[in-house]
């Protein structure tokens, strides 16, 4: 019997899950809150660690969507869900209600609001930008004029902005900013070859395939500097230059340095769009507010609500590759669940 599967979120995880569910006879409905799919991926230029073109990847994700049994609804804001006779009733802000046999939450993440780290002055000093804004500059090839004139510039990359920070309310490590910082440092060196780039880090978590190699490449081939110390504060001095203070912990001395541009490597925080859904279903959350699965190790895609599944960064910070793998795993679980439901 054909069933309805609702996927909340048309980012990479949602798209991949829909593709994976394409082989099943069920009807797949993607509810996307914006008016196009792709989530955060569409704002990204190149991906670590191999500088793959993000738009190409997005295209291939969108291409693999099954035509026969899937449907995407744009501009739908899901705000509530309730359990009803073994099914889930999905309420949209527009007032529409959809009955679903299974729901997959692929609501993704929000970027940390760098503004909350007041001492870094994002939104106050115009040359303090976030990694995502820098990526936007790469996408649109729209660099501020002062970076274009070809003179040597000093650029600081500040790691762990809004991650591993009780003050910012995030104890978790976003784990991807490290490699993003390395990747963007290399891109900046390519784009502004006369510039020097300094990465201020606490630990570099190069956990993925080819991450450590890229880190070494940044040092060896691109001359990117790495200083082990968390930046304490950024202050604007005359003509928009920025004074950055940190401790060079490896030599145990406080230091200051003047930069032309500071890039804040912002972490991932739980998506606010998932908060009301989680609240309506009393879905438990992890320490930092990501949605908690039943079991972190063996049932990472299942929740305590029957028929409700999780995929991608709504449950923890994941790389694109991990999100996609995760989405496929979730799709498998959904098919299993619907079979089980049939048998009863």
């Amino acid at each position, binding site marked *: 019997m054909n069933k309805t599967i609702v996927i909340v979120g048309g980012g990479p995880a949602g798209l991949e899950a829909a593709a994976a569910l394409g082989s099943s006879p069920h009807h797949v409905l993607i509810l996307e809150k914006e008016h196009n799919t792709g989530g955060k991926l569409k704002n990204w230029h190149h991906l670590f660690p191999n500088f793959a073109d993000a738009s190409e990847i997005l295209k291939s994700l969108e291409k693999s969507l099954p035509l026969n049994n899937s449907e995407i609804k744009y501009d739908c804001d899901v705000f509530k869900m309730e359990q009803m006779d073994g099914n889930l009733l999905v309420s949209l802000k527009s007032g529409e209600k959809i009955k679903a046999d299974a729901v997959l939450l692929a609501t993704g993440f929000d970027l940390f609001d760098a503004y909350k780290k007041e001492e870094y002055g994002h939104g106050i000093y115009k040359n303090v930008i976030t990694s995502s804004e820098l990526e936007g500059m790469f996408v649109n090839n729209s660099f501020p004029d002062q970076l274009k004139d070809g003179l040597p510039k000093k650029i600081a990359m500040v790691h762990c902005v809004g991650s591993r920070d009780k*003050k910012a309310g995030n104890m978790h490590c976003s784990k991807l900013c490290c490699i993003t910082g390395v990747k963007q440092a290399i891109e900046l060196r390519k784009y502004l070859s006369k510039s020097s780039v300094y990465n201020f880090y606490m630990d570099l978590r190069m956990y993925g395939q080819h991450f450590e190699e890229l880190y070494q490449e940044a040092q060896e081939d691109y001359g990117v500097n790495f200083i*082990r110390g968390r930046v304490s*504060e950024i202050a604007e001095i005359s003509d928009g230059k920025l004074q950055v203070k940190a401790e060079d912990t490896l030599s145990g001395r*406080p*230091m200051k340095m003047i930069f032309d541009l500071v890039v804040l490597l912002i972490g991932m925080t739980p998506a606010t769009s998932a908060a009301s859904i989680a609240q309506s279903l009393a879905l438990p959350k992890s320490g930092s507010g990501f949605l908690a699965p039943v079991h972190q190790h063996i049932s990472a895609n299942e929740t305590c609500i029957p028929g409700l599944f999780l995929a991608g960064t709504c449950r923890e910070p994941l790389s694109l590759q991990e999100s996609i793998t995760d989405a496929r795993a979730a799709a498998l679980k959904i098919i299993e669940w619907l079979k089980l439901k049939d048998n009863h």
Partner: protein
Amino acid sequence: MGRLYERLCEDLRCLEGLKSCMNCGVCTAICPSAEFYRYDPRKICDTVQRADDESIEQLLKSDTIWYCGECMSCKTRCPRGNTPGLLIMALRKLSQEMGYFTDSEKGRQQFAIRRVIGDSILTTGYCMRPILVNPANHPEQGPVWEWVYNNLPEVMDKVGANYLKDGPGALRRIAPEVLSEINQIFQVTGGQDFFQLIEEFSKDKADEMCLDAGELGGDNAYFSEVYTKNSGNHH
């Protein structure tokens, strides 16, 4: 886990000040003291965190813990919610309880503080009074202050202070019954005993250094030694 570490943990300020440090160095980066002294709050947190009594003892006997200016700038920034400045306060307290403070040049200065500030609190009800800022000991206060100092009643009267008089107002005389309340509080809460401890350890050190520590005030050789001695080895 050592004895000193356990005693340190009894101090609330240690518990509040050091939860778990990940050595990011943000405290040292903004620390005014790290800029001018051979001082690294990150390392202090790390040393205490390792719970090794030998290095803690070394710390308690060193100049290091006395460099902090207690501005608490470190508290604002620590991503783990630690306050190295509070930890320093706990370390200083323990150093004085153990008598280790007299081992270091900067630690010995506690004697002068106890004599000036401590006595002032108990006898006048103020930490600071104009009369304590003697131009001879405070050349940096400049000639205007010297003029104020020499004309205290007149100047204070002109600006509306109630200088050394009864009733409310700036610089009023604190009534004897109020002072006895203050003394009572010091008695009950251990403040008095702590003063006594500083006195005793300092006097032992003074004897060892063959300097007279006197019974009251700052008019003695040990006081001027600790008040003015700067070996210049601090940065």
